[in-house]
């Protein structure tokens, strides 16, 4: 059952390599990489990748799979297929399931269930606090021993600074980061979009930028004081980026991620006015109060989007992660204020990165890919060595020239809550090989 990929342009951010070569894969591993690898009888399939990019499988370190407990939104089966369709071979899933992933049995369940149902690797993130209540620490050590790659109370920021301080102190004994969803719950209470001009004219209660920034500042200071690792989830504001930039200048052990929607859309999208940050190509504005523009943190204003793009470009922002948050159609068809926060992102992420960041020269291809491969791998402590012999055969093939239109009805995800429906994107994964097997390929 060998697989031979021929003549692709290999871009390997793990080894800083770029070359045209063939790759032979057998039994889940890369056997050899080189030019003119001979076909032999054990090769069951030859893939011609001429003119295409061959890249290590992408990693999305921020995904909500909803299983167990909310299988009507997404399951490990559908979520991992959505990941494969986007070009992801490894995803980290957040613990806000029902029940919460806050003990080793739940970690074991996720690992076993994803081995059984999943088509890509699933790495569980454990909760920091029991039941995500922000009151007492969960059994972090036991979860890590069982396979958790990080801990996070994602979706519910820990309000109690003493508990957060303890958590940072406690995790020093393990080589994992705390992934912090930064939000002051009192400042954001009742809000459903960014507090600014558009919340004013739409009459929607706002979530001020400061609701995020005060906790970004708090957690950087607490992590520094404890000498612990902090990874800040989905930064959305200019000042959050600036706080991380300053922390990095002090050599604090801080990393951060941004979602594709936060570098693409502004809060004008809620008003149906301007969807994109650039006016380069006026994307068709749909309508006001589209609940697929509602997520937490919310879409921010133009200055914030520009600052995020700057942060991506200068390296302040290490990772691009989707915060894939599936919800049912019925849930999203409610009144704007009642609809749940969150949008899905697995199947549009690389397309948006290539179209919105690489195609216009904001990021080099290799920098963009680093933020979806080697950087999250290092943060999560994954033993991934890129496209070299003996390493795990997680490889994707990207057609950088393919122009395609996002159609939510073709998604592998169960959910359809995506604001990019109808967008024209350039560049797409056409084949995803996870652990040596073809997990997805374009029709």
């Amino acid at each position: 059952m060998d697989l031979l990929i021929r003549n692709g342009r290999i871009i390997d951010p793990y080894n800083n390599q770029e070359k045209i070569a063939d790759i032979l894969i057998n039994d889940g591993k890369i056997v050899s990489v080189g030019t003119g690898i001979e076909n032999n009888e054990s090769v069951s399939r030859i893939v011609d990748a001429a003119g295409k990019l061959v890249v290590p499988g992408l990693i999305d370190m921020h995904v909500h799979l909803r299983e167990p407990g909310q299988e009507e939104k997404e399951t490990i089966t559908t979520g991992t297929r959505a990941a494969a369709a986007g070009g992801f071979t490894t995803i980290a899933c957040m613990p806000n399931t029902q029940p919460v992933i806050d003990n080793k049995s739940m970690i074991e369940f996720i690992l076993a269930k994803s081995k059984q149902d999943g088509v890509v690797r699933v790495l569980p993130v454990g909760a920091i606090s029991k039941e995500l209540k922000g009151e007492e620490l969960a059994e972090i050590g036991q979860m890590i021993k069982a396979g958790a790659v990080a801990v996070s109370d994602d979706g519910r920021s820990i309000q109690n600074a003493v508990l957060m301080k303890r958590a940072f102190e406690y995790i020093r004994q393990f080589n994992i980061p705390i992934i912090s969803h930064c939000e002051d719950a009192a400042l954001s209470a009742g809000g459903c979009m960014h507090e600014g001009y558009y919340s004013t004219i739409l009459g929607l209660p706002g979530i001020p930028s400061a609701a995020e920034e005060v906790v970004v500042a708090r957690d950087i200071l607490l992590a520094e004081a404890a000498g612990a690792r902090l990874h800040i989830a989905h930064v959305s504001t200019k000042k959050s980026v600036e706080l991380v930039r300053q922390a990095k200048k002090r050599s604090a052990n801080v990393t951060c991620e941004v979602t594709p929607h936060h570098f693409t859309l502004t809060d004008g999208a809620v008003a149906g006015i301007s969807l994109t940050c650039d006016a380069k190509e006026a994307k068709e504005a749909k309508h006001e109060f589209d609940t697929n523009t509602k997520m937490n943190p919310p879409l921010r204003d133009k200055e914030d989007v520009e600052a995020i793009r700057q942060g991506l470009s200068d390296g302040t922002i290490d990772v691009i992660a989707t915060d894939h948050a599936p919800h049912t159609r019925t849930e999203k068809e409610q009144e704007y204020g009642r609809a749940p926060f969150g949008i899905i992102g697995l199947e549009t992420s690389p397309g948006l990165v290539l179209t919105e960041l690489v195609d216009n020269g904001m990021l080099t291809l290799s920098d963009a890919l680093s933020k979806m491969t080697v950087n999250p791998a290092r943060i999560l402590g994954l033993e991934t060595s890129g496209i070299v012999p003996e390493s795990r055969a997680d490889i994707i093939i990207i057609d950088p020239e393919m122009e395609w239109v996002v159609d939510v009805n073709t998604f592998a995800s169960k959910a359809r809550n995506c604001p990019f429906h109808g967008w024209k994107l350039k560049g797409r994964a056409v084949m995803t090989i996870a652990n040596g097997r073809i997990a997805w390929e374009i029709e």
Partner: protein
Amino acid sequence: MHFSHRHLLGIQGLTAEDITLIMDTAASFKEVSNREVKRVPTLRGHTVVNLFYEPSTRTRTSFEIAAKRLSADVLNITISTSSVVKGESLKDTVKTIEAMQPSIIVIRHAEAGVPQMVSRLTRCSVINAGDGSHEHPTQGLLDMFTIREKKGELKGLKIAIIGDILHSRVARSNIWGLIRMGADVTLCGPPTLMPIGIERLGTRITYDLSEAVRDADIIMLLRLQLERQKNSMFPSVREYTEFYGLKESHLQLAKPDVLIMHPGPINRDIEISGAVADGEYSLILEQVTNGIAVRMAVLYLVNGR
């Protein structure tokens, strides 16, 4: 002139010509209310559904009378928000109502954006009767109609809007409309109740009531929504009244023919002193009377398109 909108969702989407057309139409309908038989056959055979998710007496009654004076059949549906929690979704309610084939749905809801959502779910014309803190277009139109009736035109008038701008859909609708009609609008209220970026609509902002009313042609007060002020938006009602309550002494600073407006219901002696509310400058009851003519005009125009 013809009205190009199937719905009236907000004043934001109207041009000065649209607003003028509605006011002109309202002026001709106003006469109907002075007849002995207060009814014209304009909407005979049409059904208007008043779908109210928030308690409202004056707006619902005003729409009901307006529709009846146009000979429409009127159905009032009031849904308390508490029953919605376990009950039917908004989408299902709207689809059910639509199946009864009304021509127009008039909707009020505590959540901003609901009329927009309803307009996408139905083939009926939708009229926004107030959505959250977003817009209350018929109130804005009746205010502008009342001002125009008294002052001849809106252009160049100095208008002060006082109070809780942050939570006020009436303020937003009036600001869009008045600015579009060329009036000079000053907003005044405590900074905690002044929404971010509102000046981008072309208004001035002051936190000093005397400055706001100086040389004003119109002083428009907003109802202080006492139920919304739990989060310490200001220290006390007593302090609010001292700083932002309109008293007779303020009227000396305004133009001699200043007129006072309030969308009601008023908090007497809080945002407006009883003497001012009852005084000769007050247009409060005329606003109510004009509300019917303006709503008749809106029902007629959206249906006619």
